[in-house]
């Protein structure tokens, strides 16, 4: 398989976006289940906060997705130009996160948030191009 073909590069960027989005969604879901870390720290101290975090398998699963995203990005950067991979992955991750947060986390993604995600997405693409 030619790893420099357009379809291969698109697949690599897709892998980065999917794993980064999965990481953000799973971590966010885990933390909503744990509760406000500031309140837990005030009630149980730093040790209790660390125990609450360490006891969440879902959180570690999310960190695993983030690590997979990091290595997928390194792999993509070793086969494609950074000026293509970085803006595409960065900006598409914003949109993918907004869609996944609406459908999976059931967040209230109103017009204001869609507009913010699209503005930041375009801004990141311009900044990294």
């Amino acid at each position, binding site marked *: 398989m030619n790893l420099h073909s357009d379809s291969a590069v698109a697949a690599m960027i897709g892998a980065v976006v999917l794993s980064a989005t999965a990481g953000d969604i799973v971590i*966010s879901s885990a933390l909503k*289940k744990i509760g406000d870390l500031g309140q837990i720290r005030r*009630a149980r101290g730093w040790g209790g906060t660390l125990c609450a975090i360490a006891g969440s398998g879902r959180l570690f699963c999310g960190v695993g997705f983030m690590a997979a995203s990091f290595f997928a990005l390194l792999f993509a950067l070793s086969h494609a130009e950074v000026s293509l991979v970085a803006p595409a992955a960065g900006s598409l991750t914003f949109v993918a996160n907004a869609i996944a947060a609406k459908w999976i986390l059931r967040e209230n993604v109103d017009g204001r948030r869609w*507009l913010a995600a699209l503005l*930041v997405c375009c801004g*990141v693409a*311009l*900044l990294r*191009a």
Partner: protein
Amino acid sequence: MTSEPILNSTPIPYRAPRPEPARGAAGLSAGKYAILGVVTLTGAFGDTLLSIGMKRFGPVPLARPELMIRALYSPWVAGGVLLLLAFFASYLSALSWADLTYVLPATSFGYAVIALLSKLWLHERISPGRWMGIALIVAGVGFVARGPALTATSEPPPTGALQGAEEG
């Protein structure tokens, strides 16, 4: 055995309710806005320090991964890693009380900070397109920061948060 009438029980001293901390448009306290600021700044400065450190260290071939460990002894790289650890801790804290679709755009100002750092510190050139990108990101941050930070649900908050609210 009879129960004591409520009126004869030990009087509970009156405690004035704690004043509510000042909250912004998103319903967040100043401390929570500060955490969002820490996410933004530690991410931007951490990435910049890592970039400077790795450029000074030189390229690391895939065949020699042990060089990555040696790179950690560089003060720039070590500082960058410490800042990114602080970034991750504050990011986790922010996600525990705000929506993902609020935290990500609200902290994306870090991209603009990185661009400004690269111009002021590393003396890199910022093209008009990049200035436009910074303007769009700032506009996006402004939009989302004025909305609510957390989706209201009918479910009770998690046990940990409840205990903290009662005692904290």
